[in-house]
């Protein structure tokens, strides 16, 4: 099986096959083998320990081994629970995340665990019961009775022999009470004791006397001893210790000296007392139990003790064996759980890795690769996947480059579009574009202002928008938007009424032709040529005036001179003739003078000098000018309303004064020298203009005649040259401003003069 450990991102410089990452425990067969070996060794150790339990001391068994086994069982139970909990939590998380094969892994592990759990628990229960039953059977009654009887026999025998030896010791002590042990000779004592060995079966007698240094307890000195022939020597100190116990007050002092294979020596001690009561010595008698008999007795006692010790320690022993059994069961369960998890991962990991890598690639991380550590079942699949991922990455890089190029071009186009849009917004030429469906796609600020259309009409039908009465001529130009026949734009001049005046537009409709040659719409470009036409008219009139003045003025002087000559010639004529001549020549001269005046005005209109502008306080100029009318017209009231903060305006004060006088004169005449005239100033900061408004409450001027007001020789007063307002417009125009008329509310006329500031 191919081995996979993880998916790893691949740097662009890295080769297609990723470098292997550090393997974890479960991917290392060597480590798995070592782990298995450790577990096996642990099991063997358990078996060995269980086989040697009989050699353990009870304390080691109950305090050490049982405790260690209990702790180990608890630890393994905790480990099993941890493994199970970890596995369950991981499965729940994986299933919630809808990871592939989560269900399969659950089933695999559950199957393995189930296959192991049932027999393991069954074996545990049956085995535990067997252990308990077998241990109980160890302690059956007949065996206990036999061992108890044997122990009793051995004990009784030894006890009887010790009692007998004690009796001998008492008897000898009683016999020696009359002997002065302090001064007795050792040989004499031995001689006296020798018959005891032969007559009463005592195998050794040792006599001690109380030493000269009295104390508590008193010290003893060996007087002498006799022993039967062939008696093992023994340790030699047992008799002395027993004697010391006896003189120390221990009643019924007895002991057994075990000589191993040689047998046992049974000792008993008796205090020798003088007839008057004080102790004078100690007699220690010894009997001998032969080696074979002693050994059998010891074995009987040991068998009894061993049996009883096992019975006493039955519960710890049972617990220990159960712990062994439980430990093996837990080891099997842990092994099954871990193996199930391991196998499930081993089987599903390649697919999971493929799935995860596919998700990563699906999420756009095309540098993901699956690490391949083998070339078996899944090797080819992984290789194909990695190749596919590599090709995808290459394609994506190409796509990204293309996208980048498109974005760059789009930015350029957008930049150009913004540039064109800015120009369109800044220019005074109106531009309206219409697509092939007849919807308005663009309208710039100038067009919106000139046509009095809101910008929100973009997207609306051009047919509906230009169906307005004043825009129908423009609408007619747009009507052919879907006909790609118009290839050469034809300029046209269209007049549209605007606030009682005529706005003259120079219009060009240009078809938008696509690359395929089909019409994609139409663009309407128009300029406000009204000021231009006005200027052309003024220039024409100035030329007319100049020629008129030149042509008329030249013959006037000869006419005047001729009339003078005629008058002088007929000075001598009859009175009637003279009177007639005088009257005629006077009329001629008078009319010539009148013509000269007219010609001078024309000349002035034609030769009006350029304004000499200086920064001027417009309010003060108006105030001074209006002050000229004080007291002249009794029924005329002139109100002045000046905007605060009006800046100084560059203008020719004399010419502007003439403009104001002319406009005010016209107003006074228009309202028949009776009414209110309002002269006000306004500051329009955004447009950087100053407005001077002169409004009267006269009858007003019909809209059709307003434009004619500024034409030379046009007058509604029936007198004058008709050049007043023409000169006014010219002065204002030469100051870079404009003058318009409109209706005053509720009645009258408003002259609005705009001057740049």
């Amino acid at each position, binding site marked *: 099986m191919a081995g996979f450990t993880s998916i790893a991102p691949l740097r662009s410089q890295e080769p297609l096959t990723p470098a292997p990452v550090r393997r974890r425990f479960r991917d290392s067969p060597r480590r798995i083998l070592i782990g298995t070996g450790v577990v096996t060794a642990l099991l063997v150790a358990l078996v060995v320990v269980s086989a040697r339990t009989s050699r353990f001391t009870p304390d080691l068994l109950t305090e050490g081994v049982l405790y260690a086994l209990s702790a180990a069982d608890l630890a393994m139970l905790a480990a099993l629970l941890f493994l199970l909990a970890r596995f369950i939590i991981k499965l729940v998380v994986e299933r919630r995340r809808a990871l592939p094969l989560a269900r399969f892994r659950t089933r695999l592990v559950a199957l393995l665990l189930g296959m192991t759990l049932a027999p393991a628990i069954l074996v545990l229960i049956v085995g535990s019961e067997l252990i308990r039953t077998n241990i109980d059977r160890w302690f059956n009654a007949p065996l206990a009775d036999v061992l108890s009887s044997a122990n009793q026999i051995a004990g009784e025998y030894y006890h009887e022999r010790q009692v007998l030896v004690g009796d001998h010791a008492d008897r000898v002590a009683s016999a020696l009470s009359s002997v002065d042990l302090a001064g007795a000779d050792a040989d004499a004592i031995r001689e006296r004791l020798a018959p005891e060995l032969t007559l009463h079966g005592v195998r050794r007698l040792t006599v001690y006397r109380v030493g000269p240094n009295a104390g508590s307890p008193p010290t003893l000195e060996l007087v002498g001893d006799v022993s039967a022939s062939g008696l093992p020597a023994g340790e030699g100190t047992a008799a002395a210790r027993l004697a010391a116990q006896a003189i120390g007050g221990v009643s019924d002092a007895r002991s057994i000296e075990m000589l191993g294979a040689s047998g046992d020596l049974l000792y008993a001690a008796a205090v020798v007392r003088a007839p008057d009561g004080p102790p004078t010595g100690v007699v220690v008698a010894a009997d001998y139990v032969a080696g074979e008999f002693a050994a059998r007795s010891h074995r009987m006692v040991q068998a009894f003790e061993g049996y009883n*010790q096992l019975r006493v320690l039955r519960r710890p022993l049972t617990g220990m064996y159960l712990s062994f059994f439980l430990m093996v069961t837990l080891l099997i369960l842990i092994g099954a759980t871990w193996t199930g998890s391991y196998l499930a991962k081993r089987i599903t990991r390649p697919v999971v890795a493929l799935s995860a890598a596919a998700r990563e690639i699906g999420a756009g991380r095309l540098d993901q690769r699956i690490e391949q550590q083998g070339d078996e079942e899944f090797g080819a699949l992984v290789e194909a996947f990695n190749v596919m991922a590599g090709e995808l990455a290459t394609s994506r890089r190409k796509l990204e480059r293309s996208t980048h190029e498109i974005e760059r071009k789009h930015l350029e186009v957008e930049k150009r579009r913004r540039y064109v849009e800015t120009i369109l917004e800044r220019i005074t030429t109106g531009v309206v574009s219409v697509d092939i469906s007849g919807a308005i796609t663009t309208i710039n600020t100038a067009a919106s202002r000139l046509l009095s259309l809101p910008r929100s009409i973009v997207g609306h039908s051009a047919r509906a928008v230009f169906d307005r009465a004043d825009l129908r001529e423009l609408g007619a130009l747009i009507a052919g938007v879907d006909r790609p026949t118009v290839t050469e734009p034809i300029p046209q001049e269209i007049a549209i009424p605007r606030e009682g005046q005529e706005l003259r537009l120079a219009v060009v409709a240009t078809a938008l032709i696509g690359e395929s040659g089909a019409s994609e719409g139409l663009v309407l470009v128009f300029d406000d040529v009204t000021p231009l036409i006005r200027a052309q008219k003024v220039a024409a009139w100035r030329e007319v005036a100049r020629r008129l003045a030149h042509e008329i003025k030249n013959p006037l002087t000869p006419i005047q001179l001729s009339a003078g000559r005629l008058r002088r010639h007929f000075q001598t004529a009859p009175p009637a003739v003279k009177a007639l001549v005088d009257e005629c020549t006077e009329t001629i001269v008078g009319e010539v003078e009148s013509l000269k005046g007219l010609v001078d005005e024309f000349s002035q209109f034609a030769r009006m000098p350029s304004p000499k502008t200086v920064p001027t306080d417009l309010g003060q100029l108006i105030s001074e000018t209006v002050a000229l009318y004080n007291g002249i017209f009794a029924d005329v009231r002139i109100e002045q309303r000046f905007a605060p903060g009006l800046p100084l305006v560059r203008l020719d004060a004399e010419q502007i004064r003439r403009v104001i006088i002319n406009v005010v004169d016209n107003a006074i005449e228009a309202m028949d020298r009776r009414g209110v005239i309002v002269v006000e100033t306004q500051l329009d900061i955004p447009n950087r203009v100053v407005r001077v408004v002169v409004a009267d409450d006269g009858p007003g001027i019909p809209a059709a005649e307003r434009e004619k007001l500024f034409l030379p020789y046009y007058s509604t007063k029936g007198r004058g040259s008709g050049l007043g307002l023409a000169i006014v417009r010219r002065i204002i125009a030469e100051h870079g401003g404009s003058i318009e008329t409109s209706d005053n509310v509720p009645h009258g006329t408003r002259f609005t003069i705009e001057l740049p500031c």
Partner: protein
Amino acid sequence: MLPRKHEDTKKGTVHSSSCFRVFVTVAALVAGVGVRAQAAQVSVTPIARDGQVLVSFDLGVGISDDLRDAIQSGLATTFSCEVALRRATATWFDRTIASVTVTASVRFDNLTRQYQLSRTFDGKEGVAHSTDDEEAVRRWLTEFERVPLSMTSVLEANGEYYVRVRARTRPRNAWILWPWDRSAILGRATFTFVQ
């Protein structure tokens, strides 16, 4: 009698036989002459003599059949008693001033029918002897007289102390061993040290 000593101490008239004017009062309300634990049989009696705190205690248990079986099986059976002089603190674990471990062991020789008795104090061998009297064995295992626990110099005057005795037998006879052995025998006596 310690309770009387307590009363006399309040009167300030009784003096100990040592050079220290020491007496120990046992809180009759708390301990009386013995503090019950387990089967309410353990009596613990601390006294001060000759500059030492001596503790006498009786585990108050007889030789049960199980214990007798264990002894007569020839197993060395031991009563291990941990005697601790402690002072209670309200905010932390109680502080141990001094402690001593006393063991009393018995081993029965089935051949001679003799009980070999021995004791150790903090691991040091004490007295040993043999007997064939089972009652003497019981007393040897369960009754301890005047076990030296601490010098009185380490005690604070008018301080509240208590002596805790925790005894357990070896070998244990249980299926499973648990770190918190509930089979231990516990006894406790509280006293006020007045100097």
